């Protein structure tokens, strides 16, 4: 081994979805052992897999079980891949009408997207739509251009965190839209800095719960400010203007949170109802209601839990899955502005070419061991 090579090892328990592994480098060779699969040796499992960067991103060479024997096979999509989550505004491939692919969106709450081929998304991913013109004057342009969290139902269906049930929304389908327009794409690294500005999709003035289109990464104790244009209704939340103390902003405090919701401590009783039913014709230049983090009232870091370090890093929703994962940067005050950039590799959920039921990342609860290398000497 040359002097500057890198090697790392670890393990994780599979969720059945793609698994992100953060490292101080991007490996050029990866080995994987699915201990659970190797022990069971049932049909359609992948006990062993390897990848070299020269194969290409998303590939893998695997050994899969037929139930009685191991056979060699390959994965050519959603296998191993490396990532460098260092800058924002990077996007995945565009999904649109191609002649062999289409998608539709229901005018419902939440809006449900159905694709004609596997969408490849996981719950927690973030997408943006464009050109949701069913006709020149109808469709769903009101929700185009907004980062939206995805909840996956199955390989061809997912919902997005938007209320499109209003009378001003018309169901959309790329197969029947004028000119077959309409597309969406994944935002690859949506949460590199936290907490974030977030577009508001709902405000419940009875429960004081606010829902956001994408994750906000607010923490309990977060101090937040609202900027809500008049047409959306609940302008009493706005930071400014302040009638009684001119110039002094009004802030709210978060007392509970989930990936896409948070509850403020102050009562919103009597506030004007939130109106998500914006007209189609109003979408050019439509200003969205947003909430921003402005501070916090916390004095300590993340509390320890079973198996955690004594001084855990901040926990954030990172754009994949529904649980918070730690940043790589050590302890911080809860609710502080933190850097969430990272790099490493992804164990994808791609299937074997010869067996569509044999997935690289295994099934939920599978225990997977991995080893990753970066060689400073490559002889080709």
């Amino acid at each position, binding site marked *: 081994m040359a*002097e500057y090579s890198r090697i790392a090892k670890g393990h994780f328990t599979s969720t059945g979805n793609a698994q992100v592994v953060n490292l101080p480098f991007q490996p050029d060779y990866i080995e994987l052992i699915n201990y659970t699969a190797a022990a069971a040796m049932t049909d359609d499992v992948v006990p062993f897999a390897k990848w070299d960067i020269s194969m290409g991103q998303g590939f893998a060479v695997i050994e899969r079980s037929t139930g009685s024997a191991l056979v060699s096979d390959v994965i050519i999509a959603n296998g191993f891949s490396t990532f460098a989550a260092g800058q924002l505004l990077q996007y995945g491939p565009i999904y649109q009408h191609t002649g062999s692919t289409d998608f539709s969106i229901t005018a419902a709450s939440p809006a449900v997207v159905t694709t004609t081929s596997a969408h490849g998304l996981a719950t927690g991913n973030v997408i943006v739509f464009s*050109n949701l013109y069913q006709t020149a004057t109808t469709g769903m342009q009101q929700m*185009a251009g907004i980062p939206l969290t995805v909840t996956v139902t199955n390989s061809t269906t997912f919902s997005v965190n938007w209320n499109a049930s209003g009378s001003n929304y018309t169901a959309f389908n790329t197969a029947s839209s004028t000119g077959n327009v309409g597309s969406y794409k994944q935002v690859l690294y949506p949460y590199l800095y936290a907490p974030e500005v977030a577009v508001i999709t709902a405000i419940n003035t009875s429960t004081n719960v606010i829902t956001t289109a994408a994750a906000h990464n607010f923490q309990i104790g977060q101090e937040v400010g609202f*900027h809500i244009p008049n047409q959306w209704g609940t302008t009493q939340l706005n930071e400014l203007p302040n009638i009684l103390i001119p110039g002094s902003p009004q802030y709210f405090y978060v007392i509970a949170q989930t990936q896409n919701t948070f509850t403020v401590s102050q009562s919103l009783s009597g506030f004007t109802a939130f109106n998500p039913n914006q007209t189609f014709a109003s979408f050019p230049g*439509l200003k969205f209601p947003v909430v921003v983090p402005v501070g916090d009232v916390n004095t300590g870091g993340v509390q320890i839990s079973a198996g955690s370090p004594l001084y855990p890093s901040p926990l954030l929703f990172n754009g994949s899955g529904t649980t918070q994962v730690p940043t790589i940067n050590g302890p911080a005050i809860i609710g502080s*502005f933190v850097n969430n950039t990272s790099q490493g590799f992804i164990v994808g959920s791609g299937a074997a070419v010869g067996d569509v039921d044999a997935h690289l990342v295994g099934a939920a609860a599978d225990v997977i061991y991995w080893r990753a290398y970066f060689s400073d000497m490559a002889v080709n």
Partner: protein
Amino acid sequence: MSITTTGNLGPMILQSLAPAMLYVPTPTMNYITVCDKISMPANGGTTCRFMRPRALTPPTIQLGNAGIDPPAQVPQRDIIDAQMAFFGTGCIINEQVILQDQEGVLAWVSERLAVSMRQAEDLILRDYIISAASTINAGGGSNGDNPTNLGVSDFSLVATTLDTNNAYKFMSGIEGMDRFGTGPVRSAYFMLSSTELQTDFDGLTGSGFLSQWNYPTNASALPSEYGSVFNIRILTSSEAPVARAASANGADVYYNTVLGKQAITHINQDGYSMNLIYRDPYYSGMLAQNATLAVKFAQSQAITQDTAIRNVLSTRISNLNP
């Protein structure tokens, strides 16, 4: 014929290195320019904390003649925290390169590392601002998209918003002078924009846009300053953020950051910035073959006045490629 040509007597040495290196195209780094800067002390923990007192209620109710004091107010403050992060990169250079190359490789690699570090500082600030600052979609343009292209009303709206929020402007105005083609410049906030929008700004000439060249004097103009519209002076850079094909109509979306003083603060720790580290080959392996050159720095950032910053999102009047 026995003419001696380069075909039968070629030069022994075919090339000669031109004096001076060619320039490296480097974007202007506007984000670091407009930040407040503070240094967190050594042994100060992981997190920098800011405190801003809140205004007290002005006592506008008269005391009357009862001789009774009004109830006391409880002073409040807002707290903003930012976690420090560390960054670095470097190069491993074999001694044979240093020994044999003619162009002083250690010198220009050092320079490249320094620029790389400064650019990282700026890109981190840029992406942080995209993540955390409030947004306003431009609606004053005419291209029918969301956001629209920038219209003069968008400049007016965002300046009005910051004025209403009592933000502090960066620049005082420039008084008009008796010079052809010039006009006075208002006191102004800065807007950090993409060079790709310069054609749109030019299109607003006569409608509110004043080119930097048409200022009465350029003494206070920054090198990257393209011009001004009303109470906003525009700094452009090719590294300004652009969300490609992400608008409602599938056009590029530009993040135009408009801000006043103290909106963003850049934080280092105990001067732990711009550390250029050279390690002699002596420190590598038993044969001491490889030198290393590296930079590292500590940086954090916070929006310290959220009322003094807005990202005005816009498209272009037409999505031309520059």
